[in-house]
């Protein structure tokens, strides 16, 4: 792939903290390499801001190899930018050309309040996991893995659901700010495996209840979440969650 340098205009959401009102600031960056990651662009910009004695832009990042889900940026109107099945760190500057203006915003959701600039508080997801996204494990030695027969299809489907990295792009993208794709991936992953059976029903009920409590919106099946998910989590998981929820409701004794 041909390498080139570009000059860009960045419009970045700046917000001091959760209580203050934010606004867009424009920045000029020069000689950006097409081989850089989008996060490296922000590293360059922040060095420039620090040199100028200004407050650098706060943004989440961790692994920088597309598996942690930290890099939450809404770039030019799309979660993680224009590439599909992709995180911000894996978005490369060759997605843009010289002279482009790039607008960068934080995830916008009532359940993901802004902490500073582009950093949002995603602990709502942690609380949903705490409400039921776990399994019972007996103490003592680990069992022999082969003692639990699992159908290959179930194992594969559970693994596909487990690929969810909890980045929140589904919530950010959904016109309703719904967390159904995330929650359904977490419920699906455990409901298809024998280890997940003891809490299967309470899990479905409690995680859905916590999701509603956090203030996420409702699913209207636009499937935007699936299209923007960096891990390609399927909306078939949402249908499975609906089945699990219905089943749990029918079987519940209270």
């Amino acid at each position, binding site marked *: 792939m041909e390498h080139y340098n570009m000059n860009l205009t960045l419009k970045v959401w700046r917000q001091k903290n959760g209580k203050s009102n934010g606004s867009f600031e424009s920045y000029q960056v020069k000689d950006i390499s097409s081989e850089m990651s989008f996060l490296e662009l922000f590293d360059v910009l922040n060095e420039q801001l620090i040199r100028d004695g200004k407050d650098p832009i706060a943004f989440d990042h961790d692994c920088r190899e597309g598996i942690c889900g930290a890099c939450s940026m809404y770039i030019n109107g799309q979660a993680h930018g224009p590439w599909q099945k992709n995180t911000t760190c894996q978005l490369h500057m060759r997605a843009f050309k010289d002279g482009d203006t790039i607008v960068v915003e934080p995830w916008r959701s009532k359940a993901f309040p802004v902490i500073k600039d582009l950093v949002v508080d995603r602990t709502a997801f942690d609380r949903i996991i705490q409400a039921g996204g776990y399994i019972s494990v007996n103490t003592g030695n680990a069992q022999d893995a082969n003692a639990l027969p699992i159908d290959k299809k179930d194992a594969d489907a559970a693994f596909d659901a487990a690929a969810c990295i909890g980045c929140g792009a589904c919530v950010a993208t959904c016109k309703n700010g719904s967390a159904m794709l995330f929650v359904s991936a977490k419920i699906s992953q455990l409901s298809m495996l024998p280890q997940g059976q003891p809490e299967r029903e309470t899990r479905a009920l409690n995680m859905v209840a916590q999701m509603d409590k956090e203030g996420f919106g409702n699913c209207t*099946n636009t499937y935007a979440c699936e299209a923007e998910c960096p891990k390609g989590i399927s909306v078939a998981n949402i249908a499975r969650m609906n089945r699990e929820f219905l089943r749990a409701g029918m079987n519940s004794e209270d």
Partner: protein
Amino acid sequence: MGLTGLFLITFLIVHCGLNAMIFFNDGGDTFNHWAHFMGTNLIIRTMEIGLFLFLLLHIVQGLMLVSQNNAARPVKYAVNKAEKNSKWYSRSMGLLGTLILLFLVLHLYHFWVPSRMGGLGSIHALEETSLPSYAGQEAHNLYKEMLVVFQNNIVVVIIYVLGVFSLFWHLLHGFQSAFQTFGVNHKRYTPIINTIGVLYSVIICLLFASMPVAMYMGWVS
């Protein structure tokens, strides 16, 4: 939303099927026969109450969705390319539903009000639209009423076609969406359901739209 939607989808099949009787082009004899049955049968009349309740419930659920979902994103995006990840009509169900509701008010005023309220608020002379008798009971000539409404008024015909056009997009999303809500998402069956949904939306809406057009053009008289 899915449950009430599927009920309304079922109703549309009956409604469209019976109305299509006008295409027998027999001066409305077959159509009026069935219209009379629908208007007088006790089971159908009871289901009519259910239909209005489900319609109301569908609207209430829709309004609740809109208010909760708006609250879930208090600060909107400055730039949002929703067209990159979802179909416009799947994101516009509230707008399409509102358009259908507006159309429905006019539609009920045209046909349901005169036939149920015995002419109260009727826009046409009753003598003209009443049949002498049907097994001893007086019956409305609904067919004639359709002719009166559609034959000479291009504006009404256009409004009806636009109303049905809104309905088409609403159904195109709603049909398959209802199944997803009920947890039906299957490798083999979902493509079949989606195909049926598209065929259903196209056939129902083409038939509905062709009725006022056919009457205006004089193909059915």
